[in-house]
């Protein structure tokens, strides 16, 4: 294969721009490896001369941080499972089953999609206050369990499933749920994986709902937890950066595993939030 000179030059130029673009990440990583006294040394030591990795991360990972991390992990996993289940049920109903009022209901869902989430925030809070769901993880999981974007996305995938498969399920005497669970859902597994990964990332990163609906520090998620760092350790930036790295790490792992799905999912029609 002939190498294209202009393509090589552009690759180098773009690589330089790319490095510049992720410089904040590199700085964060490097600062989290250093003793505090070296963090603001200038010129910047991108590769630390003194390493303090183990001490920094050990300090961060002792105490409350572990609890915040655990809270985030199980809330995110529970939310993702419930959300994907609820959305795939609805998506299947809207795309593969015929029932009266289906189109009207779908128009209602479309209309609700235009409502900015913050427009319903105050009454949501009042409702949860009345139901005693404020400052509970169940409340937080419920808030993120119903998403229109998920129903839209999975509906697109279901529409690609040939009706013959669904009919064959009926012929075999499978009920509606079994047809959905054992035939239709496995057929759109890549689509479900794509959406599940996106939902995981969005839930892990959710800041607004935990900020408003959680009060007790014991219940905090990682996003609220790293905000408390200043209070806990003063302005110790090496520790703050180690906390930030730890908060991003699961996302990087998930993204590394599902990179292709995430990018395909995002391109699929521009999914967001």
């Amino acid at each position, binding site marked *: 294969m002939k190498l294209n000179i202009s393509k090589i030059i552009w690759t180098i130029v773009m690589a330089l721009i790319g490095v510049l*673009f992720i410089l904040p990440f590199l700085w964060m990583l490097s600062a989290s490896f250093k003793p505090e006294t070296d963090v603001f040394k*200038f010129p910047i030591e991108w590769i630390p001369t003194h390493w303090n990795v183990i001490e920094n991360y050990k300090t961060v990972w002792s105490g409350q941080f572990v609890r915040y991390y655990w809270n985030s992990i199980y809330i995110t996993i529970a939310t993702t499972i419930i959300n994907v289940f609820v959305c795939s049920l609805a998506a299947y109903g809207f795309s593969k089953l015929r*029932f*009266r009022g289906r189109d009207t209901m779908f128009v209602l869902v479309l209309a609700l999609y235009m409502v900015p989430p913050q427009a319903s925030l105050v009454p949501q809070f*009042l409702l949860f206050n009345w139901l005693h769901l404020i400052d509970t993880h169940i409340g937080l999981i419920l808030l993120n369990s119903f998403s229109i974007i998920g129903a839209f996305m999975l509906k697109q995938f279901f529409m690609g499933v040939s009706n013959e498969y669904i009919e064959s399920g009926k012929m075999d005497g499978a009920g509606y749920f079994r047809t959905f669970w054992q035939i239709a859902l496995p057929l759109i597994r890549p689509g479900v994986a794509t959406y599940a990964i996106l939902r995981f990332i969005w839930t892990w990163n959710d800041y607004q709902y935990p900020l408003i609906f959680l009060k007790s520090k014991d219940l905090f998620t990682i996003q609220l937890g790293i*905000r408390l760092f200043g209070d806990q350790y003063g302005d110790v930036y090496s520790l703050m950066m180690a906390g930030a790295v730890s908060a991003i790490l699961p996302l990087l792992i998930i993204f590394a595993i599902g990179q292709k799905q995430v990018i395909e999912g995002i391109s699929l029609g521009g999914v967001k939030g």
Partner: protein
Amino acid sequence: MKRTNKSISLSMGAKEQVAGYLFVAPLMIGLIILTLIPVIGSLLLSFTNWNFVAGIGAIKFAGLDNFARLFHDSAFMQSLVNNLIFIITVPITLILALALSILIDKHVYMKDAFKVVYFLPYISSIVAVAMVWQVLFHPSFGPVNKTLMSMGIANPPKWLADIDFALPSLMMIQVWILLGYNIIIYIAGLQSIPKDLYEAADIDGANTWVKFRNITLPCISPTTFFLLVTGIIGTFKIFDLIQVLTQGGPANSTTVIVYELYDTAFNQLKTGYASSMALILFLICLIITGAQMLAQKKWVNY
């Protein structure tokens, strides 16, 4: 024989009806309770004067008072202005994203690696990313200002702590976060342009600029339009970045509608007044969506 067939299919139809409702029920119930009823609630509460802590008995009907107050509320008016200024980030992101996505799509090796690099800020937690920028932008010992000072700039701006620079700093971070998302969508759009259009233009001897102007730009217009509209609506929903970095300050220079709403509802406990802000936010998003539907026919080539 015919009759039994019909009754079987009828009962199957009826079963499918029930199954259909059961399948969509969880989502519909969730949406009705968590979105539809609260939005109607916001609408009703916006005409009241109420602190929810005082209990339901303390609700007072206030007519349009809240809305009249909003227009004399300097912090809220400032938040509207700031939201409008924030819209500038959308075209900036679009232009940068289009340029980079064309380069990534056609002119470089290792396309996937570039997609990942530009996408990193978008998937990272905003709180963590905001903390990093807070340190980078630190007025006295942050790396940004140290670099500027070493380049001979004696008094670099105080960035997030500077009344004139805080909003532009936030806007810059916002562009940085959203660029990757826009690039991914643009690359998908670019790849859907039929190759033979370019081949035909090559035969006609068209240069790169002519091809960009007459093929790429028109063919990509639905993508641009989509990103423009969702981007503008997105700027009105911005909250996390502001709450973590500036809390609307210094001196309200970075406050936005959602931050005002949050502060009014959950710090000042003015439930009715905050609801009127929620209604304004809803109306703005509705107007943008409406304008989109009207403009779509005029501007977009399908």
